């Protein structure tokens, strides 16, 4: 029983990986007409990826999904909106503020801004600029999860909020300094790590299934969307503030 479950997980993981291997092999052999270098490395690497994916999915089912759902249930049962919103904000802020991808993007953005002469290219001012960017993004993700949770509770339709958000992004794109726009768009993408996504999804779906009158499908999703939308607005706002 356990063995057959494990085999199924491994088979799924192989299916997940196959397209990448096929694409690389096709271009290497047919288009670039080169032999595959380091076949051994490629094979061990693929085995590690397959084992890792299988383990990850097993861990999702056992750990992250139940954790997100039980937190949602416990917080809903406590009945305190305040603590639920505090939890939502803290979850978004704390998982984002020290995210390595975000630190890298912020440092890169500071370097580019220093080169272009937008800010003082001294180390202290670069660091302050990068920290400011990181804080804006982390704060906006916290706020995004908070708004998203509030939306699930109140039952606001997601599309009005998102369309409103996109309208703001489009307006700000026109007025924001050109140098910040690309970074702002990318900041929306790097905010949610592979561990945060399942937890936040389980939280939203869990809340929507314990609150009466909410459908998990219609109301439970959407938290990630807010978490990728708000950082764009905040980073562009930060750019307008700093570059004046």
């Amino acid at each position: 029983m356990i063995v057959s479950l494990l085999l199924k997980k491994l088979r799924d993981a192989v299916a997940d990986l196959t397209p990448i291997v096929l694409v690389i092999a096709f271009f290497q052999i047919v288009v670039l007409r080169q032999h595959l270098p380091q076949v051994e490395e490629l094979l061990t690497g693929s085995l590690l990826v397959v084992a890792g994916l299988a383990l990850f999915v097993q861990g999702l089912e056992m750990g992250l999904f139940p954790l997100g759902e039980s937190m949602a249930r416990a917080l809903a049962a406590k009945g305190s909106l305040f603590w639920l919103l505090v939890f939502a904000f803290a979850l978004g802020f704390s998982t984002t503020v020290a995210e390595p991808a975000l630190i890298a993007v912020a440092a890169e953005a500071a370097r580019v801004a220093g080169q272009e002469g937008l800010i003082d290219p001294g180390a202290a001012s670069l660091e302050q600029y990068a920290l400011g960017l990181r804080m804006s993004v982390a704060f906006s993700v916290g706020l995004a999860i908070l708004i998203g949770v509030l939306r699930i509770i109140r039952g606001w339709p997601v599309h009005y909020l998102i369309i409103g958000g996109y309208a703001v992004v489009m307006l700000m794109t026109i007025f924001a300094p050109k140098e910040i726009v690309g970074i702002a768009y990318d900041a929306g993408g790097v905010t949610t790590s592979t561990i945060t996504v399942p937890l936040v999804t389980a939280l939203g779906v869990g809340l929507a299934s314990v609150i009466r009158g909410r459908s998990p499908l219609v109301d439970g999703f959407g938290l990630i969307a807010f978490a990728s939308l708000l950082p764009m607005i905040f980073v562009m706002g930060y750019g307008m503030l700093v570059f004046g």
Partner: protein
Amino acid sequence: MVAGFVNNFASILMATSRDVLPIILLVFAFQLFVLRRPIPHLRRVVLGGVYVVLGLTLFLLGLEKALFPLGRIMAAQLSDPAFIHGAGESAAVADWSAYGWVYLFAAMIGFATTIAEPSLIAVAYKAHEVSAGTISQWGLRITVALGVAFGISLGTFRIVSGTPLYMYILVGYLVVIVQTMFAPKSIVALAYDSGGVTTSTVTVPLVAALGLGLAATVPGRNPALDGFGLIAFASLFPIISVMGYAQITSLRAKYTGKRQGDE
């Protein structure tokens, strides 16, 4: 070789554990001070958490060891002027039609990496469970992957042709807004989420390498300005493809329903 492997493993494990740390602290603090009751099946949950961290570590280690280096080399080779124009020739102005293999590579690698994206696997799993099976995991993942494939392919075309990023994004958002008004309401939130999850561990490193490589070799492009923005394409087009798929299925259902009613 073995020592290097162990070193790599340890450093990725540290990085992944660091991602979990704020979650552990937050949940622990809430259980202790606010909720004051234990998490059900605590041992199972903790074991699951260990699996997630270990699994992700092995996954990233495997990617970094084998697939990323090769992907980066190939992105560089495909965007190399010698490959595109033939050895010995060079062009002062980029001719967008000479880059056919690049667009194809962008589309295929975008599709393939999205299929292996762990965050998307998690969201598809939940969507399948919550929709009582009407949304199939593979159906959603393939639709999202097609969106990413088209988005990244268009993104490389933008870099080659040098057209401004914000024009594409503005038009894309307009399409999303119009679609939102007409798409079935049950798919809207999921479609938006699909846009956000496509760009994490697998897609970003390969796609960024392709973007920067192109911007560095295409004549007249500046890597600092033109290399970015592929990520934005990769998160915009899945929203369009997921809503589009839902629209097509619901229109089809309406059409066949009507026809059966007429007969």
